[in-house]
């Protein structure tokens, strides 16, 4: 299972390094979303206050695109079917694709955070770095797991472009809430202190635990004919 997962993650990342879809298309999309948020909110003070939430919202929108892309690779020339035909362990496929997705998301999030510092005047400070990195890690893994799970279900069915957001967005609500609050605490947005952030990581932890186990079990039945 882990050998297959490593194999598939390496393959997905190599494809991304060749095609540069994330860096050339998804990243600019996320950036324009961040700029548009500022247009919608107008005043600097409001933008500064809600900056962490905007970063995570932009991440969620990008997640939808990344998941579509991750499974478009597989369905383009029948690789999903070929994997099933080759008896590749579905749990391995699930973990592998989630791992590759997590790596791409992590890069995206870091760049969005830097953008928040530039555009929204967010301030990083030393005391919050540990919390920030942990939050980033937990939220990224959680989003990647749940994105892969529902992406696999939606892949190859009619109307997948519309079905995926409908299934995925309600499910990631706890991540949006937890990651935003923890990020606020780490950045000290509106006077939040770092210790406020740690309880939220518990929430993210439960989410990751739930979907790593649930997803590993459920992915096979979801993609099987």
């Amino acid at each position, binding site marked *: 299972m882990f050998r297959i997962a490593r194999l598939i993650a390496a393959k997905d990342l*190599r*494809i991304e390094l*060749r*095609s540069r879809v994330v860096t050339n298309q998804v990243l600019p999309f996320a950036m324009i979303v961040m700029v548009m948020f500022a247009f919608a909110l107008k005043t600097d003070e409001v933008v500064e206050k809600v900056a962490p939430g905007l970063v995570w919202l932009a991440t969620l929108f990008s997640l939808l695109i990344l998941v579509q892309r991750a499974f478009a690779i597989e369905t383009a*020339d029948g*690789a999903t079917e*070929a994997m099933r*035909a*080759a008896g590749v362990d579905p749990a391995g496929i699930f973990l592998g694709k989630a791992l590759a997705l997590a790596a791409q998301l992590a890069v995206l999030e870091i760049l969005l955070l830097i953008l928040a510092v530039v555009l929204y005047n967010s301030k990083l400070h030393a005391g919050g770095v540990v919390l920030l990195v942990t939050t980033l890690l937990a939220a990224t893994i959680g989003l990647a797991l749940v994105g892969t799970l529902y992406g696999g279900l939606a892949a190859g069915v009619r109307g997948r472009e519309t079905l995926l957001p409908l299934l995925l967005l309600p499910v990631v609500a706890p991540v949006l809430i937890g990651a935003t609050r923890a990020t606020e605490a780490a950045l000290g947005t509106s006077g939040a202190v770092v210790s406020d952030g740690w309880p939220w990581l518990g929430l993210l932890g439960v989410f990751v635990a739930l979907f790593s186990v649930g997803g590993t079990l459920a992915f096979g039945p979801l993609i099987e004919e």
Partner: protein
Amino acid sequence: METVVHLSNAVAVLGQFPVLAGASLTVERGEIVLLQGPNGAGKTSLLRLFAGLMPLARGEGNVLGFDLRTNREAVRKRVGLLGHANGLYSDLTVTENVRFWGATIGASESEVGAAMTRMGLAQRLKDVQVAKLSAGQKRRTALACLIARRAELWLLDEPHAGLDAAGRDELDATLREATAAGATIVVASHELERAGALATRLVEVVGGQVRESQVAPDGDNRSQAAG
């Protein structure tokens, strides 16, 4: 002889349409069976059923000793299917693709190399991205992926499509070698001249059923010559 595939009155459904409507067929080890018939007759579905990809709606089926009704997932590890799609990643090179598919069953580097040599991909084409290949070259790559998997039962759906004369010769030689090494092969093809010469048996598929099967005119001595 050992029975590799046994199907009796198999019905398989795609959506609400019965692609297989009571097909019965038996294949012995070492045979090269050619499935022929018009478009939509059920050839592809028959291959997908053997590969354990489709559920069996009615009837009985057994592949390599596994019951298709209860245990079709177990069949897959020992069967190699080349479908209409090639299952290749267009951003990766030929070598990377063959290596990836070989690795899914734990093939060694030398086996991957041998498979590529067999299909004439080891020289000029090995570091070319699949997106830049012609249709025939993609088909060769897909065949190399299949060879690297060392399956016991080979299921080929129109393998000759898009291949040039040299590619066809390599394919035919590969298939004879595989049967000599103990593999069994089921081919669906429209190219009767080509595939008919290779096959030990012809099977006609019509209306989701197997109409009749007959020994190929000179099939017997061919398989013996290869063996």
